[in-house]
């Protein structure tokens, strides 16, 4: 649990219709999974998503990137 103002970032992914790829729509900062869900839902409400997910940014592990520093950091 992080202090207010120091919340970790969650990436937000969503799908609009069946058959479409899940896409990255933005991010939220939240103290934990529960609030990340609430925030994603109330901030990224521009579409009627059929699926909406939050993923802690630290769980997104780079494999390849033209920005090599991102991959090197995890080598």
């Amino acid at each position: 649990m992080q202090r207010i103002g120091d919340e970790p970032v969650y990436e937000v992914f969503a799908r609009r219709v069946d058959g479409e790829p899940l896409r990255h729509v933005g991010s939220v900062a939240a103290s934990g999974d529960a609030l990340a869900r609430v925030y994603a839902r109330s901030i990224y409400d521009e579409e009627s998503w059929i699926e909406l997910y939050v993923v802690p940014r630290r769980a997104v592990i780079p494999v390849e990137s033209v920005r090599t520093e991102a991959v090197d950091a995890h080598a």
Partner: protein
Amino acid sequence: MSTPLLDRAAALPRETVPPLVDLVTALADNKHALGLRYGEWCSSGPTIEAGVAATAMAQDELGHARVLYGLLEELPGAPRRSEHEWAAGDARTVAFVDRPFPSWPHLIVANLLVDQALTLVLETALGSRYLPLRQRTRKLIEEEQFHAVHGQGWLLQLAAEGPRVRSVLDAIIREAWADAVCWFGPDRGGALAPLVAVGVLREAGDAVRRRFLRQIGPLLRDAGLASLLRADGDGWVPAEALPWAEWDESRRRMRRG
């Protein structure tokens, strides 16, 4: 169940009308007040995300109040609630939501205790025999789902801010405690008992309170804020006797304040 539905107000047994009017009025007024209170924090939350969530919840509560005021229109003897006159003196709100919340932790306590108490009462109407009530309940409960997640998430975040914030929270919970925990009515429901007897509500009183305490007990314990309740077998009970002498059954609030 083969019991026939009560499809309009005229089909309700006479003795159930006054308690139903009182209950729906109080539900609607409290939701109206919660909507105003949440809305007052739209641009003042401790984070911008918090403000967005409060603004979203405010709209839900106002929407629910509007739906419930619609239900009142069909009930004989119901007070008239034109949209903005409700506060004119006879609002059936609990004291905790009567006035603007002085701090964000107040909003969270209202979210966690008052908002959720109202939702648990609504849940007892999910399969109501009174059709107009039953037809509105599911939508409202669906829209409440994220309010509970919000309240729980923020309580844990605030509690993690340290002992000073926890002691502030503890005092605020004390302020709202009786308002929320008495809201289900005494024992077997008090004034709500006739509604349970004819199937307008599934249950009232202790049965709903137990469910409410089972929901918030573990959460308050994890947050280090469980001074007002204690574990009892597989459930939770209030640590101190509830102030029933001050409870006004028809207005569904404490007499003082």
